[in-house]
């Protein structure tokens, strides 16, 4: 019998690689090795409804146990892949033992970027990536007196929304001059800053953290770069992520802030594919190499990797999209805002129901929508088709954008 496929990783990309390989006809054994003790689950609710209890644990798994059984996907949970020997086609596991493979898929994702500061290891200083992290956070949140969030990215803002809605005092400390500097346009960042301030969240922009202080091992305060001390009995460090590429890098696969893959999700070793947050891939859409952190990217790239494993060619060409829920706002983003030179607003910022269309040299490159999912969905189609309204048409609500898809 063939040694089959070994997938290292236990989340969206790992599950989808297995599912898509089977769908495309891959018939050899599949083994999925994850260091987490549970089957692949949703991460987005961990900074949203899971913290309030609105999203129950039973709703977290991406697929039921029967899915893995029926598709003959063996899951090895709570097992960490420690090293790869590509020549011998073996993965060694942390607990001893090793697995042979014919094909290998890496879907190792990312981990929170550490903050190398005194006090970052105090009790009450938390990160948020895994279900275990979310359980710790949830346990602390109810009793927290004052919260400091270090980092004004999506996860920090989502936690701030949840905590502020619970009536907790929250301060966000962000080193850049605005929120979400990496992820969204200055217009959306400014809009969200206003929303958070109106809910009582204090924003300290252009502000660094010098150290985190505590007593008896418990956190008590965060000291900012300018010397100001912020009281805190709960601190969330959310300053971005680091791709988990050590396993691949040590085995000699090319890595550059991400495991380098081609548009068929192949790494520099023809037997090895990779997908999800851990990869740096050529984006047909952006015309450059990108590392994306989103469910869309993990799933769509994994579909490509699965097809590749089954001997089919299905290039990864999807338009990137992402969502975030804060307070009663549904944010949906499609395309890539970076490099745009013009924008047009459709709808009303005051009523908190609008989309911003971004253009580069007159062509649509991205749309950010707030409580306007129809624009977002249309944007997915327009960008996939390479069609573009003019900025005037985008701003004019009497112009039916749907006509551009039908054309």
């Amino acid at each position, binding site marked *: 019998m063939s040694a089959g496929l070994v997938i290292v990783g236990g989340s969206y990309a790992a599950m989808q690689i297995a599912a898509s390989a089977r769908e495309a006809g891959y018939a050899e054994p599949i083994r999925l090795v994850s260091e987490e003790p549970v089957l692949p689950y949703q991460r987005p609710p961990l900074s949203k409804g899971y913290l309030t209890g609105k999203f129950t644990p039973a709703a977290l798994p991406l697929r*039921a146990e029967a899915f893995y059984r029926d598709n003959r996907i063996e899951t090895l949970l709570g097992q960490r892949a420690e090293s790869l020997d590509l020549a011998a086609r073996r993965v060694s596991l942390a607990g001893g033992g090793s697995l042979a493979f014919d094909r290998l898929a890496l879907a190792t994702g990312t981990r929170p970027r550490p903050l190398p500061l005194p006090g970052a290891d105090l009790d009450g200083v938390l990160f948020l990536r895994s279900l275990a992290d979310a359980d710790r956070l949830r346990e602390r949140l109810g009793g927290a007196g004052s919260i400091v969030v270090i980092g004004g990215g999506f996860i920090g803002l989502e936690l701030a929304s949840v905590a502020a809605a619970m009536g907790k005092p929250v301060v966000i400390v962000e080193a850049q001059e605005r929120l979400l500097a990496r992820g969204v346009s200055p217009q959306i960042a400014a809009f969200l800053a206003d929303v958070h301030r109106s809910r009582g969240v204090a924003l300290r922009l252009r502000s660094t953290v010098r150290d985190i202080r505590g007593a008896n091992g418990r956190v008590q305060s965060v000291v900012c770069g300018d010397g100001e001390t912020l009281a805190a009995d709960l601190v969330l460090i959310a300053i971005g992520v680091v791709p988990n590429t050590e396993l691949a890098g040590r085995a000699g696969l090319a890595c550059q802030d991400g495991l380098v893959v081609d548009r068929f999700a192949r790494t520099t070793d023809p037997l090895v594919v990779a997908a999800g947050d851990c990869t740096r891939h050529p984006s047909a859409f952006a015309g450059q190499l990108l590392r994306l952190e989103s469910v869309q990217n993990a*799933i769509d790239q994994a579909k490509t990797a699965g097809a590749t494993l089954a001997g089919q060619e299905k290039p990864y060409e999807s338009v990137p999209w992402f*969502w975030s829920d804060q307070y009663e706002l549904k944010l949906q983003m499609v395309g890539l805002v970076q490099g745009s030179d013009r924008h047009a607003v459709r709808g009303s910022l005051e009523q908190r129901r609008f989309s911003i269309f971004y253009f580069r040299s007159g062509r649509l490159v991205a749309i950010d929508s707030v409580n306007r999912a*129809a624009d977002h*969905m249309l944007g997915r189609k327009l960008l996939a088709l390479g069609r573009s309204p003019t900025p005037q048409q985008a701003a004019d609500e009497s112009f039916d954008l749907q006509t551009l898809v039908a054309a």
Partner: protein
Amino acid sequence: MPAVVYVLKDGSERRVDVPEGTSVMLGAIQNNVPGIEAECGGCCSCATCHVYVEPAFADKVPPPDLSESDLLSGVAAERKPNSRLSCQISMTAALDGLTVRIPDKQSL
């Protein structure tokens, strides 16, 4: 417990008990009913949990809210008058036997 009948892409049917308060989407995921992808996990952001509600149940299922109908405008398969996002339909005793047809595709 009320049941949902899922009509799969190949025309076959799966009848599954889905507890009251659980969504038609989650009923499918928890019972490994294929064809509902649910990329966003039910937060009404992805439109990959599209189903067609059988006409006999059209009047029993509460109508979509604004964010659901906005999202429905962009489903990958054909949008029909009976198109719904299954994560937004919560099971009740009155919906026992609810029959939903799964479209041929969920993503572009």
